[in-house]
């Protein structure tokens, strides 16, 4: 029973990370009809941003370990979001703005070029060898009487219940990083949803993505909306980069490519252009991958990449709009 719960936890976390990156994809495609293949690199830049901020010994405010960890985490999240957003806006300004309206294929190739360029710059600036992420969160154990009673840890498997008051999230994992990852993920996901669905800027972005001409006619200037979309997408990818390296530990310049492609698949399955679709697609993908590895015998589990892509092809053929997507007007 707890093996299933652990794997579900793993799948959920992986899914949320794919989802965060996928949200960036979906928003950008919705607003600019642009398959942003460099999005995976914003994930990488965010991870390195967090790495540098986590290694700085400055954040020794407060006394206890808990306070230090808290501040390090907050600063890391902010730095990773900022670096992801900055690079994303830069790429939009330098690479995409002019070409976007001129030709779709050329825009796509520019995106691939930008992705390779960012990886190469990563190699030179951050040094090519993989680097370990400092173990920022010493294991944090907060147990609430109600829940721990219900969850009897099975014999032999040391497990820890981390429960935060605001969010009744259950993260069964031996170390605190999973718990912290889960909390930050939850806030990031909630933040993304709130921004897009509840705020005016979010409304403007959705308007532009549905029909740029009519949005323009009601006074929404599309260019700032697009820049904000890139910034938000980049920030979310940056945070996902930080959480990925916090949980899986390794940071290297090529780390962005595979998660980027997976998140791309998630965005399409979920329905390009819709934030909730991207999150649902990400979760679906994360769970599918983790559970297929957990329960399929050794040799077959290698095929999970093929299964993921088969899922993508099936969706494209039967339901190109994805689960929650909707028809797109002609390119702006």
């Amino acid at each position: 029973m707890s093996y299933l719960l652990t794997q579900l936890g793993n799948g959920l976390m992986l899914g949320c990370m794919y989802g965060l990156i996928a949200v960036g994809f979906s928003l950008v495609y919705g607003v600019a009809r642009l398959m942003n293949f460099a999005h995976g690199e914003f994930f990488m830049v965010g991870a390195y941003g967090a790495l540098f901020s986590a290694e700085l010994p400055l954040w020794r405010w407060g006394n206890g370990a808990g306070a230090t960890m808290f501040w390090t985490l907050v600063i890391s999240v902010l730095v990773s979001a900022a670096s992801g957003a900055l690079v994303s806006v830069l790429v939009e300004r330098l690479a995409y703005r002019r070409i976007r309206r001129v030709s779709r294929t050329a825009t796509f190739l520019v995106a691939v070029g930008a992705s390779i360029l960012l990886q190469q710059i990563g190699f030179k600036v951050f040094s090519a060898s993989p680097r370990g992420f400092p173990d920022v969160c010493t294991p944090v154990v907060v147990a609430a009487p109600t829940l721990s009673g219900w969850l009897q840890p099975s014999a032999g498997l040391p497990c820890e219940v981390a429960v935060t008051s605001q969010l009744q999230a259950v993260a069964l994992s031996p170390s605190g990083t999973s718990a912290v990852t889960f909390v930050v993920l939850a806030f990031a996901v909630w933040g993304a949803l709130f921004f897009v669905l509840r705020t005016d800027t979010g409304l403007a972005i959705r308007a532009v993505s549905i029909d740029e001409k009519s949005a323009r006619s009601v006074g929404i200037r599309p260019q700032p909306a697009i820049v904000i979309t890139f910034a938000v997408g980049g920030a979310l990818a940056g945070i996902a980069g930080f959480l990925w390296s916090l949980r899986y530990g390794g940071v290297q310049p090529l780390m962005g490519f595979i998660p980027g492609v997976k998140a791309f698949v998630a965005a399409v399955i979920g329905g390009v252009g819709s934030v909730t679709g991207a999150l649902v697609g990400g979760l679906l993908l994360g769970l599918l991958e983790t559970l297929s590895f957990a329960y399929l015998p050794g040799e077959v589990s290698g095929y999970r990449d093929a299964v993921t892509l088969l899922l993508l092809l099936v969706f494209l053929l039967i339901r190109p709009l994805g689960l929650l997507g909707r028809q797109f007007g002609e390119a702006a």
Partner: protein
Amino acid sequence: MALLADYILTHLVYLSILVIFAAGVVVLYGLAGVFTLGHQGFMAIGAYFAAGIACLMPAGGSPILAAALLVASVIAGVGGAVAGGLLLTGPSVRLRGDYMALATLAFAEILVALIRNTEALGGMRGLDVASLLPRASGSARLPILGTYALASVAMAAGAVLAVQRLGRSRLGIALRALRDDELAARSMGLENRRARLISFTMGAGLCGLAGCLYAHFSGHVSPRDFGFVQGAMVLLYVVLGGSTAVGTVCAVAVVYFLDEGLKLRCFGLLTGGLGDALVNWKDAILAGLLIALLAWRPYGLLTANRLRSEP
């Protein structure tokens, strides 16, 4: 000087294989108007079919058997790739633009993922291709390499000419009309189902042929050779070449010259610090340059921007 000739001939063969592959993509993207990201899948089919049939060769087999197997492997490779191409004609009718790109990308990545996970095909580590052709080693290296180079350049020239003629023929004109504006073309009586079938067959076939030649000449095939970036680079050559066969050959030459130039420290002119920096930053410089080229001429280096021709 002999060593240098060896270097040139080897690169000439790889260049010719690249041109044949690009010619296939010219037919798929330039004529049929398919925004393809999966053409490297057709090349992979060609390469692995050729590798599979090549290893049927018994150790001491006679040259006639080797020649027969060679022809069989090319036919199988091209046939397999064409089958793959026809597979895609179905979705190509219903899907448009970006979604067709995604479907072709998914097709190629599924193929590579399957190869990566089947041990029989060597998994991620790849397969060694039994050498049906006499191995270019020892004293006979140069003459053998020379014949390979000649043969591959001839095939590349043949492929480019065939695609050029197809483009000029009435079928080619109809294809380009359908690509430019499908409704207008269909209202003029052009039926796109049969045209699509023919162009997919030729496009995928050429990619498969490139795969066969690559397998036999390089002696090793692995999923790494048919990755997403290789496919995108060839599409880049076609776009820079203005979706024409001749233009694509120019684009392949220009980018290859830049790549080699940077790798060989600007042909030996910049030894020392600057040369090393050039080599280190080769990929970054190349990527930056290609983005600039695309931004400057999105419809091809030689076609003015206002002559918009875009699937």
